[in-house]
């Protein structure tokens, strides 16, 4: 008899093998809706419904400044694993430290926070022709976060006696940079959120680059302060705030600042007066919003 029951069980198992691999359920498409969408796509007629441009465009130029601080005590930065070219990369036993969370011990200032304007109606100056220098020394990018304007020449430089390569993720750029020389690069597209820059020869080397068409972008200094000047006044500009370690979506820094309409996507809005400096004062980033 037992065997009979065993048979039943086994047959049961055999007949209902349909579980498949343990993957999360991906939502399926809505067929009717899809047909409707396809209809609109194949119809050459350009249906209206595009979001119109920002209406108000004032005159004059203003400046935005502020200062980011970190509420809480940052943990001791970890030392990076340096296993190649140690004679250069850890000269005299010098350790390379993880620079993803740099807080000024004196005034809690948080460095390397990126602030950039998402869209502006006007731009004051054209991209400068003087090349920016993005240098690396002792197997470390000198700038942990590097902001540049699209079209502005960048001299990706190597001040080390050894060769590097610089690989800007999501761009066309992954070039050899010979010792003591530089390689010219002209950012050709906006990055949106900052993108990672690495050296494949020394995988611990890491930095971030952000390229903007209008060049309205700032990286907070060691004391956490930042300034964006020559912004178009008289219109509501939405700014995006980013930090490498932020736990928000794509590194966005969300703050509790209703007066600035600060969203969880790390965006706030300000309207500048002509020839005036708007100081946002101290923007305190809670420890909780900084991810691992």
């Amino acid at each position, binding site marked *: 008899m037992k065997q009979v029951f065993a048979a039943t069980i086994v047959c049961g198992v055999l007949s209902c*093998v349909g579980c498949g691999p343990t993957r999360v359920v991906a939502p399926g498409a809505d067929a009717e809706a899809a047909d409707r969408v396809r209809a609109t796509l194949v119809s050459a007629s350009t249906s209206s419904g595009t979001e119109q441009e920002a209406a108000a465009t004032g005159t004059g130029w203003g400046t935005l400044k502020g200062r980011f601080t970190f509420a809480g005590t940052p943990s001791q930065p970890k030392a990076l694993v340096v296993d190649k070219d140690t004679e250069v990369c850890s000269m005299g036993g010098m350790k390379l430290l993880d620079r993803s969370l740099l807080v000024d011990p004196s005034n809690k200032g948080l460095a390397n926070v990126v602030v950039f304007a998402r869209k502006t109606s006007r731009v004051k100056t054209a991209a400068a022709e003087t090349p920016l220098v993005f240098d690396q020394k002792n197997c470390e990018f000198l700038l942990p976060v590097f902001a540049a304007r699209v079209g502005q020449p960048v001299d990706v430089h190597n001040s080390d006696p050894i060769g590097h390569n610089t690989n800007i993720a999501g761009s066309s750029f992954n070039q050899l940079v010979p010792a003591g020389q530089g390689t010219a690069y002209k950012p050709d597209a906006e990055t949106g959120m900052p993108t990672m820059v690495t050296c494949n020869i020394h995988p611990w080397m890491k930095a971030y680059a952000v390229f903007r068409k209008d060049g309205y972008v700032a990286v907070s200094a060691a004391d956490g302060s930042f300034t964006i000047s020559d912004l178009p006044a008289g219109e509501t500009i939405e700014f995006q705030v980013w930090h490498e370690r932020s736990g928000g979506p794509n590194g966005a820094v969300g703050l509790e600042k209703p007066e600035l309409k600060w969203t969880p996507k790390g965006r706030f809005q300000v309207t500048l007066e002509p020839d005036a400096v708007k100081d946002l004062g101290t923007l305190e980033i809670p420890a909780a919003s900084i991810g691992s």
Partner: protein
Amino acid sequence: MSTVAASTLSHGTATSLPPARKSRRRRRPVAEFLSTYVFSKDHKVIGLQFLFSTLLWFLIGGLLALAVRWQIAWPWSDVPVLGKLFAQQGGQMAPEFYTMLFTMHASVMIFLVIIPILAGAFGNFLIPLMIGADDMAFPTLNMLSYWFMWPAFFFFGGSFFVEGGAASGGWTSYPPLSTNMNSSPGMGMGQTLWLLGLTMVGVSSMLGSVNYMTTIILMRAPGMTMFRLPMTIWAMFITAILQAFALPVLTAAGFMQITDRMLGTGFFSPEGNVVNNGIASTGGGQPLLWQHLFWFYSHPAVYIMILPAMGMVSDILTTFARKPLFGYRPMVYSIAGIAGLGFIVWGHHMFMSGMNPALGITFMVSTMMIALPSAVKTFNWLGTVWGGRIQFTTSMLFALSFVSMFIIGGLSGIFMAATPVDIFIHDTYFIVAHFHYVLFAGTAMGVWAAIYFWFPKMFGRTMNEFWGKVHFFLTFIFLNGTFFTMHILGAVGFPRRLADAYHYETFHHLQPLNAFMTYCAIGMVATQVIFAANFFWSMFFGPIAGRNPWNSNTLEWTAPSPPGHGNFDFQPVVYRGPYEYSVPGMEKDHLMQTDPPNALASAAAAHAH
């Protein structure tokens, strides 16, 4: 049928006796149940446990075969039932899944069905009964031999659910494919479990074979000389010897492969062998070594898988031909001859393996020679049927089909033995046809014959003859439809184990034929539902059978059906060989081994008047 099925007792005296039950001291019912049905040391219960387990795995193996056939007939098409598993892939099975399917089909059928059902189920059930012993020599070993199968069941069954799936290196699991975890999915945990399972089956068989040899040598009833043993017992005896001598080699080889995989010993893979950009193997091993060791066991093993069937068929043929076995001693000698030669022919599996071709010639000759005893046996079976009075019972039909099919399987073997021809048909469907004719059309049919024949002795009831014949008819048709066509597939050179052979121009046109074979295979498996239904129905509701429903001669038919603990309600004494049918000058057409000579005399006297 009715007269045959009707129980006629050979012993007027025995009927009055109640079925013997050794008085056991009362225990709690649970313990009672456990010791009687689960951890029983009674050879009959153990035999039945083997029978049920193996039949269950027979079903699983058959379903695996169906999945394999589906892929061969309609490659990459939506698989029924299994398709749900592959929803992510549009319902088509992945090639490694296919390799896993045929690997496990072969492994299950060989190691969990054929070997244990012959030696385990029928060996256990029949040996003591047919030699007149009240049980095996070592009941505890006997119990262990069954319970050592369970780890194997779990290893084989469980391996389907580990990462990468079950073993997928073919049932021969040739290294380096099988020793290198990188070589294929299923070569990880699955293959290890497979090897462990194999070892467990080996242990079980070993315990069994020791037991069988001892029992047959020491515990025969008074008067049961070696040359009065029924062929079944002779076959079991020699099978046991084969196992005892061949198995250690396989077990050792299996452990070598395990250490190759787990500890990086390099028995089987050459140095610096890189598979799938994995880590290079170390230690200069030799892949052919495994093939030698493996086939040194596995060739005798194919005789382990057929000899007992031959023995049982011999007994069934004589019973239903009502005629003595033709050439009893030649039959015994040929079994012994097969067993002896079986140890020096393993190389014929390796003609194309890169083994020294000169060695190939040696093995060709020995292989040709091993066809001889098989031929002798076949002629003797024909001789047995000749001049008989054939009763077409289901059991007899299966037995006859065994002879008929074994002829095909035997003859097709000669093609493979001829080395030059083997160059072309090696690893094609010709060999697949060959071993399916021997193992399915041969052994499996023999097993069915034996089940229909001894079912009354196992459960005290006879199986339904009509449905039995339907079962035989359909199985017989479908199996030939499936397997005979494989010969001509092989003649085209259609290789085995290919997930999709139709992108080769040479084989492109063979798809319809394969589709036909798959239909037959589906029919064949579906037919077994009839058998299963008949089996379980008759177990409970079949007509009650007496001690000797088939008017057969051998000792088990003098015991009650089913025999109680201790088998015989009187000590059987043997006066003659097992095949005294249609002895002239007697009204009864069978003369049991236990019939005392005086009964014979009186019968003769009665005849005189």
